[in-house]
């Protein structure tokens, strides 16, 4: 019976793979595969739940298999089932089932019909991995799938400017969430000296014993998890991504951003609750954060004049309340709230086009000129200020630019003198020197042994920032991503004894993906005169196959769980000691920006309005 859990992961996986096989024009088969997959899953879930409850509803923890083992290190897949999983499973299966049936007709004749169902199934796979995950590593696999499928879905209308721009924007916020998770994994590895499962976390004595000695680390882990949760659930200060994600077809926005995707943040908080249950200060912090979000988002929602952003902010406000409920330990209420909010917002988004006829009719018959609102009774100065700041979404979007992206851009733009050719001269010398040092550790003094990893990881970070901000050479940007990985590997090799197998795990994916990607770029440059990074070029219009291969290369190089690099990244962190916070931070930042830079290259050269104007393309503002 417990083994049935595998089914819930395998089914979407099989469905996803099947959906890749059918031809683009075969709408019937594509949609059939989708709703059959999800339908069977829903049916199986119902039976499973009944049986599970019949047998007492005990928590299930299923250690699947180890992917990589080394001394003191075990990367294993673990599944878990309890009432939180149950709730999310039911919400997910029901909504996805309904939406796939819905979209079957809704998307008829739409360019990208196949793509749509591919992404939905891919997303659903990631969703199930997350909700069934029994440890942070497994969760992280699903987490990454959610990010990528979100990116692809927001950029569904990839020939327009805004969807692509917003897709990159949302992806970048998701990456911030990833930093949180990666660092949390790193710290907890040091805390527990193993990759701990959620099942063990629910062991009060164990948690209590470990945290008693390391309360700071405990708080840090909780905080990092909160960052990921807040990013995923669009809580402050990340809220502004949610309305901007509503660029895909309405049903997909409804299920992703109205319901399933945004509630994942709440999920991870509930999942880790046993861990921070006794950190009162952290619980207070979550309550305050949730309440602040709830209030600010409510005001923002009240001034929205577009229906989808109004629903988005209302949903954010409710999720803020859900965070509070979780922090107060009211798990049951939080679960009901999650379900109710998910259903309500999904339906509201689906019927959102009807608001025109509904409200116009309502006004036509019962027109009340300008109803007074509570704000009208407040002092004018306060009222107007609040109105303007709410309309500006509390400056959240511009703050992201001001404090995150613009400093990065400035940092990156300092390096203009590097070109594709001269960069490798400098890099070659530096890397070679590093390599020699690392192979002869005896010549390094202990003091330098501490600083060298930092220096090299910092250089790696600079490279990837340059890659992220490069505006001309695609090749330079792409190869900088590769050299960044090499430099990180080098930096780590100073840190501990040099274990070549770990580096092979780490670099194998990078090298292959890097070469494939480089080949794609060269191929495209051969075919097209205009390939650069200063704007969107939209080459997917004429070269969809190269675009697809390049996307896979991007995922590979970004450490997406399709290559050993994914494990390798985790391995790298296992070599960072707990007192090397700065090193961990540099490397985490590197990996994050790395993925971002790769996706940015993909978006800039393949997505957006096509640079050739012989066919219709929408205005930039639309």
């Amino acid at each position: 019976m417990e083994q049935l859990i595998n089914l819930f992961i395998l089914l979407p996986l099989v469905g996803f793979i099947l959906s890749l096989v059918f031809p683009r024009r075969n709408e019937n088969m594509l949609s059939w595969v989708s709703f059959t997959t999800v339908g069977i899953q829903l049916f199986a879930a119902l039976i499973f739940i009944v049986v599970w409850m019949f047998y007492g509803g005990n928590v299930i923890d299923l250690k699947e298999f180890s992917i990589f083992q080394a001394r003191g290190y075990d990367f294993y897949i673990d599944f878990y089932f309890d009432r939180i999983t149950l709730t999310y499973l039911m919400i997910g299966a029901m909504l996805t089932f309904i939406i796939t049936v819905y979209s079957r007709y809704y998307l008829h004749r739409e360019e990208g019909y196949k793509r749509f169902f591919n992404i939905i199934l891919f997303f659903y796979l990631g969703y199930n991995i997350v909700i069934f995950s029994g440890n942070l590593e497994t969760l992280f696999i699903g987490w990454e799938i959610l990010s990528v499928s979100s990116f692809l879905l927001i950029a569904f209308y990839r020939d327009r400017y805004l969807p692509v721009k917003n897709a990159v924007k949302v992806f970048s916020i998701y990456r911030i969430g990833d930093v949180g998770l990666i660092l949390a994994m790193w710290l907890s590895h040091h805390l527990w000296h193993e990759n701990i499962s959620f099942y063990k976390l629910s062991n009060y004595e164990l948690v209590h014993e470990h945290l008693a000695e390391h309360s700071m680390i405990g708080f840090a882990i909780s905080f990092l998890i909160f960052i990921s949760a807040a990013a995923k659930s669009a809580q402050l200060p990340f809220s502004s991504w949610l309305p901007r994600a509503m660029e895909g077809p309405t049903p997909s926005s409804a299920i992703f951003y109205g319901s399933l995707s945004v509630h994942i943040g709440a999920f991870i908080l509930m999942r880790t609750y046993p861990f921070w249950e006794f950190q009162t200060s952290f619980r207070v912090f979550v309550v305050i954060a949730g309440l602040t979000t709830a209030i600010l988002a409510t005001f923002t929602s009240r001034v929205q004049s577009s229906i989808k952003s109004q629903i988005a902010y209302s949903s954010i406000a409710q999720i803020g309340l859900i965070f509070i409920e979780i922090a107060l330990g009211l798990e049951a209420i939080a679960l009901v709230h999650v379900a109710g909010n998910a259903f309500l917002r999904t339906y509201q988004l689906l019927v959102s086009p009807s608001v025109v006829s509904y409200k116009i009719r309502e006004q036509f018959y019962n027109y009340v000129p300008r109803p007074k609102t509570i704000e009208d009774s407040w002092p004018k100065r306060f009222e107007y200020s609040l109105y303007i700041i709410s309309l500006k979404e509390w400056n959240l979007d511009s703050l992201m630019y001001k404090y995150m992206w613009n400093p990065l851009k400035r940092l990156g733009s300092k390096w203009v003198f590097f070109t594709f050719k001269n960069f490798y001269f400098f890099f070659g010398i530096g890397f070679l020197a590093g390599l020699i040092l690392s192979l002869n550790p005896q010549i390094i003094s202990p003091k330098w042994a501490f600083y060298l990893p930092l220096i090299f990881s910092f250089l790696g970070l600079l490279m990837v920032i340059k890659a992220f901000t490069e505006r001309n050479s695609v090749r330079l940007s792409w190869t900088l991503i590769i050299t960044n990985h090499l430099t990180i590997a080098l930096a780590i090799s100073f840190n501990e004894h040099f274990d070549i197998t770990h580096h092979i795990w780490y670099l194998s994916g990078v090298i292959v993906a890097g070469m494939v990607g480089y080949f794609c770029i060269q191929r495209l440059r051969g075919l097209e005169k205009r390939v650069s990074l200063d704007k969107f070029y939209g080459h997917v219009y004429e070269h969809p196959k190269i675009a697809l291969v390049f996307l896979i290369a991007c995922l590979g190089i970004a450490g997406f769980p399709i290559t050993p690099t994914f494990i390798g990244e985790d391995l790298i962190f296992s070599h960072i000691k707990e007192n090397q916070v700065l090193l961990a931070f540099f490397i985490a930042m590197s990996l994050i920006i790395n993925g971002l830079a790769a996706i940015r290259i993909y978006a800039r050269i393949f997505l957006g309005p096509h640079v050739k104007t012989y066919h219709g393309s929408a205005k930039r503002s639309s």
Partner: protein
Amino acid sequence: METHTGEFSVHSSIESLKHYLPSQAPLKDFIHHNTLHAFQHDSFHDGVKKAAEIFGYKVYLSVPEFRNLYAKKEIKEQVLDQVLKAKKEGKEGEWKNKLINEKIEEEQIPRIGQLRSFWKEHFKIDLDSLVHPILFRIIGSYLDQGVSIWNFPASSNGFLASIRELERNSLISFFKTKRAKELLLNGDCSLENLLQITVGRKELFEQYMFDQQFAHPGWSGISAVIEDNPFSLIDEKKITLEEVIQFELLLEIDALDDRYGEIWSPIGLKLTEDPVKLFLDISYNEAMEVKMIWQEAYEWSYYDKVLKGIQLQTCETQENQIDSFQALFCIDDRECSIRRHIEEEDQKCKTFGTAGFFNVEFYFQPEHSDFYTKVCPAPMTPKYLIREVENTNRQSSDFHFGKHSHGLLSGWILTHTLGFWSALRLFFTVFKPTQNAASVTSSKHMDKHSVLSIENKVGDELIDGLQIGYTIDEMANRLEGLLRTIGLIDNFATHIYAIGHGSSSVNNTHYAGYDCGACSGRPGSVNARVICHIGNHAGVREILKERGIVIPETTQFIGALHDTSRDEMMFYDLKVLSDSNFKFHHENVLKFNRALSKNAKERSRRFMSINTKKSAKSIHSKVKVRTVSLFEPRPELNHATNTLCIVGNRDFSKNLFLDRRAFMNSYDYSIDPNGTFLLGILNAVAPVCGGINLEYYFSRVDNQTLGAGTKLPHNVMGLIGVANGIDGDLRTGLPSQMIEVHDPLRLLVIVEHYPEVLLETIKRNPATFEWFEKDWVKLAAVNPETKEIYIFNKDQFETYIPLLKDIKAIQDTEGLFESSHDNLPVYLIKERSHGTVN
């Protein structure tokens, strides 16, 4: 309009801008019009070429698309040769090769936007991405009609004044820097001054404004429309295009100051080279020339078939036939097929087509409403008001649209409780769609059992300058006008149906475009009831008798509404029918119902989700379900494929299968030798049908800029328009789901009359004449006696001899519907012998 000399004048520049911006009204009043009306003073091909070069629109299909049509023989070689001969005499071979084989460079950089692109190139600043989001958001919130719960405060004194009021009394500003705010609050923020700061050179001001506003034509266009017609909003707002531009310039200054401080120099002074003037004469463009020839060949390949069909088709009405009933339908192309089906069901009946407001123009005020809604063609300004009383309908409400779900605490309670009700609703939405508060239903326009104030009573006062109802004399004039235009002045049947039309759908932001265009985008039910009341009025008949139209006492008028998406009919005021008429009416209803099911079957061949081979009845029920299904973006295909307008007797085209592509207006040339009624018809046909046709044309050839793109991601902005996502410009034109099966062909109006009369007639009204003279609508005259065909070309009629020699005749139309999803060719319909059909 095109005074583009060096001198800058705010007024003329703004007027010129308004002229070129999209003039689409807010959603509730969506009315079809020629998308490129601004170029209508030029001939079609010249106008669209200009539009393409200046604004970068796609104005024809692409060359590969044309070549594909040629390969599929939808463009006939014979026709192509003929067009080449006319356009490129002496070089036919060379051009033919160019059209079919050579590589044609279709890339084109429009003139619009070139000046402002200099910000990005030289100043390295992306102004649009800094200014647009906040600009759209503020305009959207200001104009919002009811999405937001907390409205724009202080909005009574106009757009800029409101912002000023807000800025003056707020601790937080829309601006990031001082200068822009200071300019708004205390400085000189006249257009000239602001342009002086940003552009710096007077001769570039206008071009700069064009560049700027055409970066977001949707918001600018709607502001201009609302400026000129504030009543198009229920919650009226004062805004002018000038204010929008002023505010945008302030935001631009703010963005530039924020980046560079106040020391940047105006764009005009930094130009290395002046951009091409927008309205300079356009240059020769080979790709355009090629496409123009293709377009002509494409059009004539279809016209030729139709014209040959008109020549060949015969229809003999028996002398002295007594019609079993007569039915008046709207001119609308969607009524083309239902008439055929009704005539098939009852071969003794007769159908007519006329503009669906039935010659009664008025405002309608439903009960419980403070507002009047116009139910006649958009250009008319009625002086009458008809009010509804005794309406028992109540609107059902739905918490999903209410404000409580967006509150913090009320939202908390709702999600915990009604959230689960939403889950149930979701389930039924998908598996068992039914009507609900979200759907738009044509029959709800007016309560079936309500009473209308049709007759003006002595002593009734004017309301808002409108007279309540018509006097008897006014009624008689309207009925007479209607009957004479359609040629129904004797041989009245016992039943005369006046059947308006409307449409039902759900989740459809463009619902107004689905109803009757001749009733300003409303269902035609009220008009049908009104004209029938007039027709049954004894006093009116008395007057008509004096004027030579004798309506027998046994004749009764019956109003009805045809729902074009559900294929249902609803009949009004049956109480007034005599017993015998009521009985016979009942039999007619059975015939109508059979015809409606067959019509549903004919329509279903375009719907992939329905198997057309099934019985008419089962298809009909599926068609009805479509109209209440949230997930169905195509409740019906509306005017898609419209290409023709036939003005003539029913016999003129009755046995021609036109595949729902024709507007049809009944007209009897024999009682109108001077073309008096004809002019009335053409005055409406040209702008209404021509407008519909051209909107479909342009939305089809450039769905991305002239159309609204796919509707699937649309987001409702303030109930006035749709955008993609939350920071987008409003999308004007038609969504791709409405036009995807449309063939972009210009409307061909075929009139059954002598060419000399027709020529003389159209010249009487310059506005109507322009449509034909400038070739935006094609016009053909068919000599009623000889059936010779004449095509209007520039200023005269030329004989046309169809290239096609024969047209296939068919008998089984039902089999035809099952055979193909695509456009069907023109067929002759073999008349079945009498008696085979009940």
